[in-house]
């Protein structure tokens, strides 16, 4: 299949029809839930991490503190689960605050 095909609309007027060149994610992959994980690091302050969780996820202070303490004591905490794009967005926000965060596929 050529990369670009054309559809004739009316006399002398054509528009390029969209062509799927490569499929990066199939429907099944898009349905797989992802989780946002924050990992412990010894430099970030506990109060700072709590504030970041409140800001990024809109969590109330108590919930943000619970996650912060889980990161501190267990080395990691799952902050959020859901679709990949949203998970990527959250991880980008967390990296903006210089937290160690990753997104993981839930298997």
């Amino acid at each position, binding site marked *: 299949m050529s990369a670009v095909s054309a559809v004739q609309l009316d006399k002398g007027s054509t528009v390029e029809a969209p062509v799927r060149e490569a499929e990066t994610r199939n429907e099944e992959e898009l349905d797989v839930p992802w989780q946002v994980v924050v990992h412990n*690091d*010894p*430099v*970030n*302050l506990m*109060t*700072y991490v709590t*504030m970041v969780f409140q800001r990024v996820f809109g969590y109330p202070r108590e919930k943000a503190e619970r996650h912060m303490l889980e990161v501190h004591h267990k080395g990691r905490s799952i902050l959020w689960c859901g679709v990949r794009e949203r998970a*990527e967005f959250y*991880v*980008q926000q967390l*990296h*903006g*605050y*210089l937290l*160690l*965060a*990753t*997104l*993981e*596929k839930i298997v």
Partner: protein
Amino acid sequence: MEICRKGEVLQISDLDPFLAELLRQIPASTNSEGEPGAEARLFSRPSAEKEICVEWKSYVEPELRRLFRSSTETVAEDLAQLNGNEKSLRNRTLTIPFEHADAWLNALNQARLVIAEKAKFTDEELNDHDRSPIGSRRDLSLFQVNFYGFLQEFILREMQSG
């Protein structure tokens, strides 16, 4: 040194030349160039999946670099108040607009992470807040990390109190 909030500004007053110099070093301390460990810490991997990491490097990392640079530039502009020789730094006051608080938190965090990564501090060292006196370059770096952390704590407290 005294630190307080007065309306829409944070004020650090009675600065001695040593602490003023540490403040002036914040922007330079955020520089991770030529330090692979510090680079890797500031721009950490978002996932174990290679495809995500490749996309991230192309699209997200440049955004993060811009954000970090912008924060550092804001802090450097505020610190221009401390330009001058050592004598003129005695008992100086630094005034920081409260709307710059986020930029300060970010730049201080960058600096702390880069310094800690370069010095390869252990968890034990990082939790030793009472270490004194400063007898080596390493002690000085640890003091710097703790001093910047103290400033972060103050800014956070003021943010939470509204």
